[in-house]
């Protein structure tokens, strides 16, 4: 068996790829933070990664000590610097020297960490198909994590950063996301302050909250008894209902919007929050009922029977035994319905004409014109996103359990 086999060559390949990826990402990050037009040195990064991987993965796994890792990091920095013509970030080292130094060190640390994790426990010699797959999958998964994280975070990052800039800065250098703290807190958050003082966002926030909370209450009030009936009581059509209730959820909103618009217009209910508070629960009740009945079925019927034996009426059984047990499911349904109502756009957009009645979705749609500067638009987006996202992340485990237990939704 030769000393260097397929694993070593794969490590070289992945080292080069990690080098290119890390160099690009850190350079772009430096560009975003500083606003200086750094240029990723992709080829030099790849070459440096290749050399570093050669140093690190050339060793047997048990010999990859901290010292060896430091050595390969130094090799990376050296090769990167030389191959890029002493411009590791694409600009002369004199601009932002200290920042560039940090960026290069961080890049080197990332690359070595990635190579070490990819090659962990696998030597430079030749290995069978199993270990080849292991090392390839490690790279693919690592790459996947990086790619997913960037793809998901970039729009949110841009959203937040744009809301803190002003139109001129955005147009002159769109890649400069540096935050100028010297201007003071008030100037930094100017867009937000203006939205609340001049664009009625306070009232939009209240309207959104009102509509969403009422929707949640109405939905629970309607769906809980319905779900209990479908899950526990025997009646003709029970089986049909438990299977078909979700079909209602398949009806496209866009098919409902024309008749509802026409009818609500003639009844004078269109430009009111009442209209929304009627439409939203109607669309959420079926799915809430479906989720809750799944949960109710999971509660042992013996508990309820015991209650009935002890002389409680059916209503009291529900109130004193079933509902307390179903509290987690109800919480997750409530959260989920809140999310739907808070985020709803189509009906709010079609129904509301009166600025005093706007919900956040409708209000932001109003900002989407060429007369309103971008930072206001993005600040509005942030204001609408933060409450629902915070609520969701706070109760995430709850919600996920409830969602996947009941069944599916989209």
């Amino acid at each position, binding site marked *: 068996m030769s000393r260097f086999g397929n694993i070593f060559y794969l490590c070289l390949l992945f080292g080069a790829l990690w080098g290119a990826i890390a160099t690009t990402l850190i350079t772009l990050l430096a560009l975003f933070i500083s606003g200086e037009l750094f240029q990723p040195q992709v080829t030099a990064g790849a070459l440096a990664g290749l050399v570093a991987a050669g140093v690190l993965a050339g060793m047997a796994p048990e010999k990859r000590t901290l010292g060896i890792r430091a050595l390969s990091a130094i090799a990376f920095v050296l090769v990167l610097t030389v191959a890029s013509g002493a411009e590791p970030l694409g600009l002369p080292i004199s601009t932002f020297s200290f920042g560039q130094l940090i960026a290069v060190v961080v890049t080197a640390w990332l690359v070595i960490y990635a190579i070490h994790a990819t090659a962990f426990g696998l030597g430079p010699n030749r290995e069978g198909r199993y270990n080849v797959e292991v090392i390839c999958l490690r790279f693919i998964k690592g790459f996947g994590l990086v790619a997913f994280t960037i793809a998901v975070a970039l729009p949110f990052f841009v959203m937040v950063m744009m809301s803190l800039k002003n139109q001129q800065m955005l147009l002159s250098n769109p890649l400069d996301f540096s935050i100028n703290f010297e201007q003071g807190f008030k100037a930094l958050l100017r867009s937000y302050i203006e939205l609340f003082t001049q664009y009625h966002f306070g009232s939009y926030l209240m309207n959104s909250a009102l509509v969403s909370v009422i929707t949640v209450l109405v939905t629970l009030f309607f769906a809980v008894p319905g779900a209990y009936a479908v899950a526990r009581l025997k009646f003709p059509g029970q089986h049909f209902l438990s299977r078909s209730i979700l079909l209602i959820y398949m009806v496209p909103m866009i098919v409902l919007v024309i008749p509802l618009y026409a009818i609500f217009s003639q009844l004078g209910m269109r430009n009111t929050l009442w209209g929304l508070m009627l439409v939203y629960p109607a669309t959420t*009740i079926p799915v809430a009922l479906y989720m809750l009945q799944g949960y109710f079925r999971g509660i042992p019927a013996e508990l309820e029977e015991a209650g009935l034996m002890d002389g409680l009426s059916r209503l009291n059984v529900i109130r004193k035994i079933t509902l307390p047990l179903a509290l987690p499911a109800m919480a997750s349904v409530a959260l989920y319905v809140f999310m739907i109502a808070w985020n709803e756009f189509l009906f709010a957009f079609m129904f509301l004409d009166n600025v005093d009645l706007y919900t956040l979705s409708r209000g932001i749609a109003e900002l989407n014109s060429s007369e309103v500067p971008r930072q206001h638009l993005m600040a509005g987006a942030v204001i609408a996103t933060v409450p629902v996202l915070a609520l969701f992340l706070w109760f995430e485990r709850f919600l996920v359990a409830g969602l996947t237990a009941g069944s599916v939704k989209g």
Partner: protein
Amino acid sequence: MSDDRPPQPPKGIGPLAKREMRFAYMMLLPTFAIVLSVVLFPLFANVWISFKPVTLGDLRAPSILVNERLMGDVEAVGDEADIRYRIRNSSRQSDIAAVFMTDELPATLDILNVDERCTLDGRVLDCDLGDYEAGKREDLIVRVSATQAFLDAPINVKDTEAAFEFDPENVLINDDFTLDNFRKVFNGSDFWPVLWASLYYTIAGTIGALVMGLFAAQLMNMTFRGRGFLRGLYLSPYVAPVIAVALAWVLLLDPGPGGTLNALLIQLGVIYGPINFLGQRVAEIRFLGLSFDFPVALTVVIIFEIWRYFPLAMLFILARMQSVSTDVYEAAEIDGATPLQQFRFISLPQLAGIMAVLFLLRFIWTFNKFDDIFLLTGGAAGTRTLTVNVYEQAFAVSNLGAGAAVAVVVFLILLVFSVIFFKFSPEDDA
């Protein structure tokens, strides 16, 4: 004879079962009521509207407009003049039935003669004017002569306004039907491109979201530090309001100055000039001497769709994966199965059920999707799907009937999909 038979269990519904049944229906009643009135009735109403020549403007009920004037010179006592009511139906499309006018005439004028349809009760004029068809206008004359009091203090007859009672025709419930809406939908040159865009968007969006969800679920099934944080992050596209993320994407992809992604790609040297991601219909791609038309904007909205909905697929696939017992994998490990083989022969079959259900649901929901494309492109540049077309016809062109007709087409296609899917769907999963 019959007395020998062993006792039989009671047949039919006993009183207890009956009570339970009544109780169940009572508990379901509110749900039935609201679903019936806000979902099922509008569905029916939509079909109804699709056969009617209704425009957005027709929703305003027609009304009677009147212009009241004193015609003729009144200079001396006894001079005669006409009070003229010029009355018309405001609508050119709708009739108004049973028009009834009431007005109070000035006390200082002597009334000589009123229209034959009117009666005079003291100073109060009541006129039963019958029906006004669409666009009808007519004059109603009351002949008067002046008194000294009127000459001393001339008053404008308009000061007492004529009041009307009438019964406007409701365009939504009259018996005027037409097939024009459907003719317009199917004859329009854009029906087939729109249908094609819809299907492409739906199929590519669904499969993309599922594949990405499967990939992300594999990543989240590993144990590493920061997994909880990343999972929350990956779920956020699905949780955030559609308008917030769609507009963030619009600014991110902006081709003008200030567009982040274009500036980024130019800085990286990937492209040389800005690409109008959301406004360019097709780009010609030459490959191996062949040239393809690549739909740019449509692909970008599909990517957005995948970006927004992969978390949902991830969530359900992850839940299923974590319920698979690890024994199977350990056994496979001992038998020498490679990671890919384990994935192919153990994981995938276990996930097939949830993937099928997710495909079915996502397919229908993607087909129904309106907000995303509407906010990103407004249906421009070849991204107009059937659902966007509903809005376009009904509210941009203001032809409610035509919009409803498109909506009927949407619903019918959906029905076909649902029937196909539920025929082939596995019985008990998810």
